[in-house]
């Protein structure tokens, strides 16, 4: 992101100089394109065809001399200055924030050495921001023109920046043309096997899911110490990849394994197959192999808020210790009014010894679209950056598609369809605190395991584990990306 900040500084200076020459003026005669044409063009772009070189240079010329079809001078000059103040939004430990704030002081003395791709990189980020602003102010003609610009600029970039820009551009286009179907339809448009593939490739390529599972498992393992019968309720069953490791750890613990019961909750499958049942069978096979007494129940629910404690067949807490686990699921409840409160209520009825939660560490749920856009652009840029080290390009692509769906939902959907409502640890802490939960600190064992795990990925360059108020955060360079936290009921409840 330091690179992006540098490019932004250069753009700022450039625009500053242009303004002085009196060339920048508000132009409203942008060309209106047929939506269908633009969308199919975007589709082509997304399958990575190279644009003709001529249009690239055309963009260059029109930027400075004015006129032509691509009239970037439509971007108001003051919007640019506002951009630089909006970048360092909340967290102070981001590289972009610190670099941009020093720009204003040294702007006039900074020499300009522009290289083509850097130039385009600056324009790309700027175009993305301007397009988002146009969408927010419902200036759709401008937004359309900018989305096309983004497409051309994106293809001139390499690596993570291009991919991120492409996904964001597609999402913006969907938003502009109201093309996005609701979230559930997006999911069901892909077959379950394909979705499983994306998930598994994401699991394998980067450490995020493994980090989540291993740290949560360690917390659960420690909470289950000494208990003879244990029950885990998993809000995020998926393929059940979290549980083999826990079952193996329970099998080998001192005093022998407890009797292990698992309740898995997941969304309905597109083809109505009972995939939760299949997952349970696989886990049962594993349990039998390692001699752990195992019981399983699978629940299909469209939303966690549809659950009731009575459905879960809870047994008296003297005989059975319960843990509740949620990996990247709680934020989906924030779109429904009363959703999260209902789930907290159910969890309190369950009376778990521990409630492990893993969530993305970023605020993508603010009321202003532009703020959400900025935040998510930073977040997913960092995430895609971290994927660049993956050895296999096929795995990388699968993981990127997996993340791309989140981007699409975040940017293109609104209301109850927008389920990717990520929030930061401090926001979640407030929610948990006001609902009667207190934090349970994750121990040093979890920290050490996580550090070793990260050291195995890419020799650990870039990935860091940080401890924050008893919670563990996985960061890429200085930017925290996901947080594992554990909660228990306060004594009052």
């Amino acid at each position: 992101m330091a690179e992006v900040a540098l490019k932004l500084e250069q753009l700022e200076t450039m625009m500053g100089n242009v303004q002085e020459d009196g060339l920048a003026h508000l132009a409203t005669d942008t060309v209106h394109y047929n939506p269908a044409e633009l969308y199919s063009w975007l589709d082509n772009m997304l399958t990575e065809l190279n644009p003709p070189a001529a249009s690239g240079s055309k963009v260059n010329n029109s930027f400075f001399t004015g006129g032509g079809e691509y009239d970037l001078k439509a971007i108001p000059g003051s919007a640019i200055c506002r951009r630089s103040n909006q970048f360092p939004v909340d967290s102070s430990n981001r590289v972009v924030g610190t670099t941009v704030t020093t720009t204003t002081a040294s702007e006039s003395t900074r020499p300009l050495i522009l290289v083509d791709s850097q130039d385009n990189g600056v324009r790309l980020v700027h175009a993305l921001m301007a397009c988002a602003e146009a969408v927010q102010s419902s200036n759709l003609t401008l937004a359309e023109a900018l989305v096309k610009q983004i497409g051309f600029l994106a293809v001139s970039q390499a690596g993570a920046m291009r991919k991120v820009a492409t996904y964001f551009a597609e999402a913006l286009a969907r938003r502009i043309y109201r093309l996005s179907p609701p979230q559930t339809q997006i999911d069901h448009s892909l077959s379950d096997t394909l979705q499983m593939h994306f998930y598994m490739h994401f699991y394998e390529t980067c450490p995020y899911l493994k980090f989540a599972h291993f740290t949560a498992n360690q917390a659960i393992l420690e909470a289950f110490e000494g208990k003879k019968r244990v029950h885990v309720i998993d809000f995020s069953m998926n393929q059940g990849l979290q549980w083999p490791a826990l079952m193996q750890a329970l099998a080998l613990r001192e005093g022998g394994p407890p009797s292990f019961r698992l309740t898995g909750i997941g969304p309905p499958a597109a083809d109505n197959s009972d995939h939760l049942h299949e997952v349970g069978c696989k886990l049962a096979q594993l349990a039998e192999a390692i001699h752990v007494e195992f019981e399983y129940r699978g629940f299909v629910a469209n939303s966690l808020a549809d659950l009731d404690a009575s459905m879960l067949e809870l047994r008296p807490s003297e005989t059975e210790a319960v843990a509740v686990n949620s990996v990247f699921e709680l934020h989906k409840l924030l779109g429904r009014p009363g959703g999260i409160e209902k789930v907290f209520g159910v969890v309190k009825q369950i009376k778990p010894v521990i409630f492990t939660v893993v969530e993305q560490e970023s605020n993508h749920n603010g009321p202003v679209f532009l703020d959400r856009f900025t935040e998510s652009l930073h977040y997913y840029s960092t995430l895609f950056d971290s994927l660049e080290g993956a050895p296999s390009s096929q795995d990388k692509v699968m993981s990127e598609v997996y993340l791309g769906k989140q981007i699409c939902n975040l940017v293109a959907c609104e209301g109850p369809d927008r389920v990717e409502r990520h929030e930061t640890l401090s926001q979640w802490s407030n929610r948990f605190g006001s609902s009667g939960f207190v934090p349970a600190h994750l121990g040093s064992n979890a920290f050490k395991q996580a550090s070793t795990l990260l050291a195995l990925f890419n020799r650990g360059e870039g990935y860091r584990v940080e401890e924050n108020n008893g919670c563990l955060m996985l960061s890429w360079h200085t930017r925290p990306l996901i947080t594992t936290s554990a909660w228990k009921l306060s004594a009052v409840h």
Partner: protein
Amino acid sequence: MVEKNNNERQRVKLVPEFSINDHQDVLVEILRRLDGPSLCSAACVCRLWSAVARNDSIWEELCFRQVSPRPSLPLRSVVSALGGYKRLYFLCIRPVLARLPKIIWSHDQLQLSLSLYCVHYYERLYVGAWHEDAPPSAPPSSLMFLRKPVNVV
């Protein structure tokens, strides 16, 4: 004179030769003390040695040589159920050692390797399901990240 020499030669021939291949328990004891690369070389010497080297207790020794205290008995049954120590060594422990040569093998690192091994076993259970309607790519393994890039399909 010649007769005496013949007798001496005959006497020498009557002394039985020692062959390690006749004492496989001793061979096992020797192989248990080898490091990874040497053990792999030894397994390539001949068919007998290759068969002896498949003895899982040799690989168990290799896996846990640096760990103290020595892990407990239930561990052996769990690891056998998941595929044995030899596979554990090749899939998890050797790559981890290769990537983190200065690692101190404490309980946490061991636990991590075992967890990864267990997840790998669980994923193998899915292999049957993959072939039915999966795209023609190989199913991903959660341990793929431990392999060198050149080995990845």
